[in-house]
C-alpha cells in the first residue's frame, strides 16, 4: 500500500515536469569555426545601446550602459575563428593603462555564431558584462578617458586567443547620472547634486 502511494506520488511529480527537461546525458555540442588545428584568432567587438554588434577599433567610444541593479557597464564580445564556437569561455577585463592594474574581470560562457566571412561572433545574449563604474578604487575618471580592455576566448579543447585594445568608455550625451557615478571621486550613496568636479583623466603621478 505504502509503495503504491509513493509510486503515485512520484508519478504525480513526473507529470508536473515542464516541456523543457534537462538532458545532461546529451553531451556537449561542438561547432568548429575554421580550422581547429590552426592557431585561434580573435578580434574584439562590443555592443552599442541598441544591441548592435560593433567592431571595436583602437580608441573606440564604447557606450556605458545601465544594468538592472545600478552602475554602468560595457558589453564586450569576441569575433574569432579556428575555435569551437559552442564550447567557448569568454574572459573580459578592464585594465588601467596607467599602472596595468586590473579594475574588473568578467568570465562567462559565450557562443560564437558563424558568419558568412568564416568568423564566429559572440551571440548578442552572451557578451561579456564588464562593470566600469562606480569604482571605489578608481584613480581617474571612468568615462571619456582611455582604458584598456583585454579579451580572452578559450574552447574546451584548449584553443585559445587573446587581444587587448584601448577604448574610451563613454556616457550618453547629457547623461548627468552616468558622468557623476563614473567620476573618480564619486562615492556610492553620495549625492550627485552637485556632481563631482570631474576632469581627472590623466594618469596620477607616481608616489602621490
Amino acid at each position, binding site marked *: 500500500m*505504502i509503495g503504491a*502511494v*509513493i509510486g*503515485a*506520488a*512520484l508519478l*504525480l*511529480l513526473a*507529470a*508536473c*515536469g*515542464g*516541456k*523543457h*527537461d*534537462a*538532458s*545532461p546525458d546529451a553531451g556537449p555540442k561542438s561547432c568548429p569555426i575554421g580550422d581547429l588545428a590552426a592557431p585561434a584568432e580573435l578580434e574584439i567587438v562590443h555592443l552599442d545601446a541598441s544591441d548592435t554588434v560593433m567592431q571595436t577599433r583602437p580608441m573606440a567610444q564604447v557606450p556605458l550602459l545601465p*544594468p*538592472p*541593479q*545600478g*552602475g554602468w*557597464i560595457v*558589453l564586450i564580445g569576441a569575433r574569432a575563428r579556428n575555435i569551437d564556437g559552442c564550447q567557448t569561455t569568454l*574572459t573580459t*577585463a578592464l585594465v588601467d593603462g596607467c599602472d*596595468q*592594474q*586590473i*579594475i*574588473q*574581470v*568578467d*568570465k*562567462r*560562457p559565450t*557562443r560564437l555564431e558563424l558568419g558568412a566571412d568564416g568568423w564566429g561572433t559572440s551571440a*548578442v*545574449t*552572451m557578451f561579456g*558584462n564588464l*562593470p566600469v563604474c*562606480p*569604482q*571605489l*578604487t578608481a584613480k581617474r575618471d571612468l568615462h571619456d578617458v582611455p582604458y584598456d580592455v*583585454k579579451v*580572452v576566448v578559450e574552447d574546451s579543447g584548449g584553443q585559445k586567443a587573446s587581444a587587448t585594445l584601448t577604448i574610451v568608455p563613454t556616457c550618453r550625451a547629457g547623461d548627468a547620472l552616468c558622468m557623476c557615478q563614473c567620476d573618480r571621486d564619486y*562615492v*556610492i*550613496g553620495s*549625492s550627485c547634486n552637485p556632481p563631482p568636479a570631474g576632469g581627472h583623466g590623466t594618469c596620477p603621478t607616481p608616489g602621490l
Partner: protein
Amino acid sequence: MRRIYLTCALLACAPLGCSSSEEFSPWQIEDLHGGKGFSLRVPEFEVPAGHESQNCYFVKVPDVNGNGQDVWIDRVLTAINPGSHHVNVFRVKTVIGLDPAAGSPTKLGDYPATVIEGADDYQHSPCWASANWADWPLIANSQHANVGELETDWKLPENVAIRLTPGELLMLQTHYVNSTDQPTQFGAKVGINFYQRQQAGTPVEMGSLFATQQNIRICASQPNVTYSGTCRFPGAVTVAAANGHFHKRGKRFTIFPWNGTSIDHPADSSMFYESDTWNDPPMATDLSVAEPANSGIWWDCEYQWQPPSVVTCDDVNAKDPLHQNDCCYTFGGITDVGEHCNVFLYYYPKVESDVFCL
C-alpha cells in the same frame, strides 16, 4: 498552470511525509534593552503555499545609550523560521522608488517602523526592484534557517564592530519561499539582536562588500554554465565573514582572494568560501583572510538549468529582457523565475566607504 503545480506538490508531499509541526520548536532569543543593544522582531506572518513573500521594513537605529553617541555592534544574532530565503539589513541611502515614508505603520519589537509588503509581485512592487537599494550598504544578513538550526550567531572579531548612528534609517528585508524545495511550514518569523560592544575605546570599523553578476543567463539549450567576477578592496583589509547567494539553479558558489593583476582563476587551494546549497547556504563567520593593498576577491557561480517547479517556462520567458524564448533564467525576481549571483562579505578596516561591485 500554477494551481496544477501546487496540487502536484501537495499530493506528493503528503504521502511521502513532510516534517510536522509536532517536531518543531519555534526560536526563542533574549530581548535586548538599554546599553546591551537592541532587538528587532518582525511581526509573524504566513506565506501561502506555492508563493513567495518579500517585505521591506524601515526602522531607525535607537539611541540605546541615551546620549546620541554611535552604537558599536560586535555581535549579531539572527533567529529565523525555516522557509526564509534571506534576511538582509541595509543602511538606507538614496531613496528612488522604495520610499520608507510610503510604508504602512508597524513595529519591529519595541520600535516604530514602516513596511512595504512586496508579496511575490516581483514585476511591480518596489520592494522587489533591487535598483531601489543599489547604494544601500549591507550591515548584516542571514540566509540560514532550517528545522535543526534556527539561529546564526555572528560574533565579530576582537576589537572590530559595526558602527550605527542613532536615528540612522535601516531597511530590514525578509524574503520567504513556500515551495516544496524551500517550505515555510511553521509561519514566517524573524528576529535579530544587535549586541552593543561593552569594552571601552573605539574599535576598528567593519565594512561590507556587495558584489553581483547582473548579466546572467541560465538557459535550457546550455544547461551547465559558470559566471565569475572580481571586486577590489580600497586598501589592505581582512575578510571576516562571507556568504554567497543564488537561486534554485545554483549548484556551487565559491569565493577566492584575487591579486588584482591577473585574469587567471585563483588557485583552488586559496578558496575561502564554498556553498552547494541554494536554499540554506552557509555563512562563514570565522574567516581571517588577509587581503593586501590593490587586491580583491574572485567569485564563481555554477548553475545547472532545470525547469521551474511552481510557474512555467512561459513565465520565465516573459521575464527575459532579451526574449530568447529558451526558458532562460535572468537576474532578479522570485526564486522560481529568476536567478542571482551575489556576494555578501564583511571586512575590516572599513576604508572610505563600503564596497559595491555592481
